[in-house]
């Protein structure tokens, strides 16, 4: 069979193939990605869309957790000062129930109890990032106001917000004041005011003052028990954060195994392509330059 005399096409095609392989390997090495356009692996590219959206969500959940955590911790530490003040009020009340005190002393104690009430009111109207954290969802105005007759009134609501902190997992992020300070039958402000009134009333017996202290204890217990929400939510956020960190690592690994390049393979491919190219060029150089024509003058003599 007659062999095609025109080798240049074959050589060009071979060079083109090795050039392409070299380019692909180089691109993979420089980007670290096996899939640089969807056509490199359509299924992997489609998967990356989903993985990358999950990774982004992970980052956002982390940001949300961090912002909720600061708010919850601020609220909790404020509540702590309220709790301390209430403990003080309880011991003041207990002291006041001691029958040996003069009315003057009882009045002084009542004044201190009123100071505690002011302090707790300040805590209950805590504002963080422009919102009143104990107002339920009606958080644009202070939840507790003193009405014309001197009583502290709750004008917040019972609303609770939930924030998604992981896919499909939401946590409540606030505790309305109606659960903390002004729960029905366990109102801190009413109890404090009752105690102060009992202390100030010269007709009050030790028994009356003792009853007011008991009422205050009830309100105190409600507050401390409702306050545990903050600690336990912060704990939950922390453990979710740990889970998200793991998930982030896992997703990154998945992303890498889906679209990332195996460096060893890419380097080998690059070397092979370079060798193939060099071999082709060498072969081409030695092939095309000699024909019988070159010897004609010699033969002719």
């Amino acid at each position, binding site marked *: *069979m*007659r*062999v*095609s*005399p*025109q080798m240049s*096409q*074959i050589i060009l*095609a071979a060079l083109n193939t090795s050039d392409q392989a070299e380019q692909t390997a180089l691109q993979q090495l420089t980007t670290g990605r096996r*899939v640089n*356009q*969807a*056509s*490199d*692996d*359509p*299924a992997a*590219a*489609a*998967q*990356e*869309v*989903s993985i*990358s*959206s999950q990774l*982004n*969500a992970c*980052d*956002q*959940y982390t*940001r*949300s957790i961090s*912002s*909720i955590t600061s*708010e919850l911790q601020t609220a909790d530490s404020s509540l702590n000062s309220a709790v301390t003040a209430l403990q003080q009020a309880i011991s003041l009340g207990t002291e006041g129930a001691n029958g040996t005190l003069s009315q003057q002393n009882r009045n002084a104690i009542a004044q201190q109890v009123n100071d505690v009430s002011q302090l707790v009111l300040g805590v209950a109207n805590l504002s963080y*990032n*422009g*919102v009143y954290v104990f*107002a*339920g*969802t*009606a*958080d*644009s105005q202070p939840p507790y106001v003193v009405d014309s007759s001197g009583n502290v009134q709750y004008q917040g*609501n019972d*609303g609770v*917000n*939930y*924030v*998604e902190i992981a896919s499909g997992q*939401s946590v409540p*992020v606030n505790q309305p004041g109606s659960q903390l300070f002004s729960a029905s039958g366990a109102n801190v402000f009413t109890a404090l005011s009752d105690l102060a009134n009992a202390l100030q009333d010269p007709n009050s017996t030790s028994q009356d003052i003792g009853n007011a202290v008991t009422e205050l204890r009830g309100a105190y217990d409600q507050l401390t028990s409702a306050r545990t929400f903050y600690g336990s939510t912060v704990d939950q956020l922390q453990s979710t954060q740990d889970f998200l960190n793991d998930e982030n690592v896992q997703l990154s690994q998945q992303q890498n195994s889906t*679209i990332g390049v195996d460096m060893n393979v890419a380097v080998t491919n690059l070397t092979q392509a370079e060798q193939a190219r060099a071999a082709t060029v060498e072969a081409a150089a030695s092939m095309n330059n000699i*024909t*019988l*024509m070159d*010897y*004609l003058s010699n*033969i*002719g003599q």
Partner: protein
Amino acid sequence: MSGLMGTMWMALNALEAQQGGMQTTANNVANLNTPGYSREVPIFQEADPFVQGNLVFGGGVDLEGIQSLRDNLLDMQISAETQQQSSAQSYVAAMNQVQTLFPSDTTGIGQQISAFFQSLNNLSTNPSDLTLRQGVLTAAQNMASAFNDTAEQLISVRQQLDGNVEEQVQQVNQITQQIANINAQLSAVSSSAQQYGSFLDQRSELVQQLSGLIDVSQLNDGASLTLTTKQGTALVVDGQSFSLSTALASDGTQHVYSAQGQDITGQISGGQLGGTLQARDQTIPALQNQLDSLAGGLVTALNTAHQQGTDLYGNTGNNLFLPNTGTGAALNMALAFTDPKMIAASSDGSSGSNGNLANISAVANQAVSNGMTPSDAYGNMVFQVGSAVSDGTSEQDASTAMLQQLQQQQSSVSGVSLDEEASNLLLYQRAYEASAQVISTINQMLQTALNMGAGA
């Protein structure tokens, strides 16, 4: 004729024949790199013998003609493969542009959809915060812009392909006219075999060029050649060519019409035109539909969720996006308002509630387009575009390899080999020298014979 004079004539004939051979070699070498050239060989034939008594003497050599070496079957296979290869090539080129519009990583629609849902989660931590609300509007605007841009780019790629169609049809017309001219000349040329050969070479080269542009079916009847598209639209019949034309059709694209005015746009399957039309009329419109379906589905679902809430003014939520659906939904996707206070985040009417944000966020996991979530629907488009390019590239590679093989085969039949021409050159030279030697010898013999007469 016999005798010394007869022998001399025979040698002279041989000289001419070898010269003809030499000329053929010269022509072959001259056309070493001419595309479409088929090597030629001289056809030597024994001349008629003459009989003298019981003896039959050979009559020397005749140069019968010069034959152009070509394989018509190979030509047709190459033409068919060229149609496929060019079609795949122009399809891949077009879809490669489209592919860049559907990135899978950190840009594009997928990224913006995910960023929008993140901004909602961010707002849920402090639903009355105006900065966070503005963040949601910005993310929503970015998402709409991503849809707008992608839809615009798809339209612009189609327009560009439209321009290619016009250009390619013009090229088809130029080539068919040239082929018709050659057909006309061929029917006029009667005898000269060598001229015939170079006409065929030219025509064959033009048919290959035409195959790169459009699907061609050829009917070869000796010198005449009839070319039609695969579906039978006449392109060249003997000395007459039939021009195709393009005109803007009601769908806003350039359609291709036969010389008789028939719309053949949907019939063209091969060559650059075939690939261009496949991308322009099938793959890209299908993507546009899906993009519109995703945009429309997303807008409808987000609006429905948004309307369940209350904004910072205490009003029930309006549309978040302009309610565009169907064709143009992606191109016209736009926010319905720019006031961040109008985001209906609240589910209980109070400003601090974030309850409705959960409803809006839930759209991320709802089937909004062809039973798929927004992110999956986009991923599916990435997959389709990637597959289109990847399949097209495989087809192109396979075709290219096949074509190279066929061209090598053709070259093994028709290609000029310098080795071969050199050895032929040597043969003709030697034969020429030998024949000249014969003449010179006969000349001496004649001289001897004449001297013999003079001496007697």
